[in-house]
């Protein structure tokens, strides 16, 4: 049960943290339509995170007797510490310029697309339902971000240069997407069979296809940084949480 709770929290944290990052663009997008697009994507991700947190809270509460320790979606998002968060390092990376935000979205949404495709057929009914529900939304995110990768990569000298910089900065965090954390190994072999090797192959194929169209090349032989799924984060997560959790830390149990 503990493993399943942690795995559900990992799925929730990935969606929440990327949703929060995307929301930082609100009012700052390069043009109005794209400001709306990135914040819409943010909303989808935060909605997906809520569904996973609600399920994690339900699982936690099944094992808790002390009413003070009852979990809710809010306590899980707002009152856990840096080391408790299980999101991948990729999603906590700063927005940088538009190219970096786009590329981070493309890498993650493509991964999410293939992962949720498998989760929706898994044996855990609630995770399958959330994955099924999210998949239609993620499909839009994949299309939108792929189009932008192509537009920038195969655009002007400047946009292509920025896209290459983004690849240099983010590629080292892509390996972690396919790594299997300690709590995850039992869950994805027994309870919800997930074929990570297949997801990785599909992801690589899609990235290659879009990069080819975008006149970009994927680096080879790069050291892959991992740790986020196990709670070892880059310095950036602390700053995100300081912002995200401020209200509940400063005014405990305040309601909107």
């Amino acid at each position, binding site marked *: 049960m503990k493993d399943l709770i942690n795995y559900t929290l990992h799925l929730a944290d990935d969606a929440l943290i990327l949703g929060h990052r995307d929301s930082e663009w609100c009012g700052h997008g390069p043009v109005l339509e794209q400001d709306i697009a990135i914040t819409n994507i943010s*909303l989808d991700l935060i*909605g*997906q995170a809520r569904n996973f947190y609600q399920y994690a809270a339900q699982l936690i509460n099944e094992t808790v007797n002390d009413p003070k320790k009852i979990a809710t979606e809010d306590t899980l998002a707002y009152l856990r510490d840096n080391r408790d968060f299980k999101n991948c390092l990729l999603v906590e990376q700063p927005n940088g310029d538009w190219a970096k935000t786009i590329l981070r979205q493309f890498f993650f949404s493509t991964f999410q697309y293939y992962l949720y495709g498998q989760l929706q057929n898994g044996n855990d009914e609630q995770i399958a339902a959330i994955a099924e*529900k999210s998949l239609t939304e993620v499909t839009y995110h994949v*299309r939108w971000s792929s189009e932008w990768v*192509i537009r920038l990569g195969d655009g002007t000298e400047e946009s292509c240069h920025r896209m290459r910089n983004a690849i240099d900065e983010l590629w080292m965090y892509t390996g972690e997407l396919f790594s299997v954390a300690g709590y995850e190994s039992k869950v994805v072999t027994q309870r919800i069979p997930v074929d990570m090797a297949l997801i990785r192959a599909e992801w690589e194929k899609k990235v290659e296809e879009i990069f080819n169209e975008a006149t970009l090349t994927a680096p080879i032989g790069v050291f892959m940084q991992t740790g986020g799924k196990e709670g070892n984060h880059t310095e950036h997560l602390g700053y995100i949480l300081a912002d995200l959790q401020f209200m509940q830390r400063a005014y405990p149990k305040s309601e909107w």
Partner: protein
Amino acid sequence: MITNKIDKRTIYSYLEEVKDPEVPVLNVIDMGIIRDVMLHEDQLEIIITPTYSGCPAMDVIAMNIRIMLSTLGFKKIKITQSLSPAWTTDWMSEQGKRKLKEYGIAPPGPKPQVCNEKLFGPNEAIQCPHCDSWHTHRVSEFGSTPCKALYVCDDCKEPFDYFKCH
């Protein structure tokens, strides 16, 4: 009110009074978000399904259903969210689609369409809700609410929202 004297159809007719706060011409039945109504011994259970995971209207809709039913005298109301099968625009009623068009929002077409991750596929033809021209183009796949995309008509030049297929 004693729930066992009420039939489902009556509840559904009450629910027609609950509107979508973002698209006030549509009620929750038109939207296709009411999956079931269950009359338990002393409790009325309404099963709803969200349109989009993060749609802020869903919390308001659930609250409005609760308020509406309690003003009618129902004491115990349970609203259950069901995610699977996932909501699709195919569940929107024909009447709902007509109301949308009259309101100035292009209604979703029937599935299957181009809701896949592939690029450079054929583009969906969307009819302008103002002048009925098919000569339109997409400005952005994301609009003022999660369920809409931005379009513009190349004939009457009016911008419009399209309730995107899902």
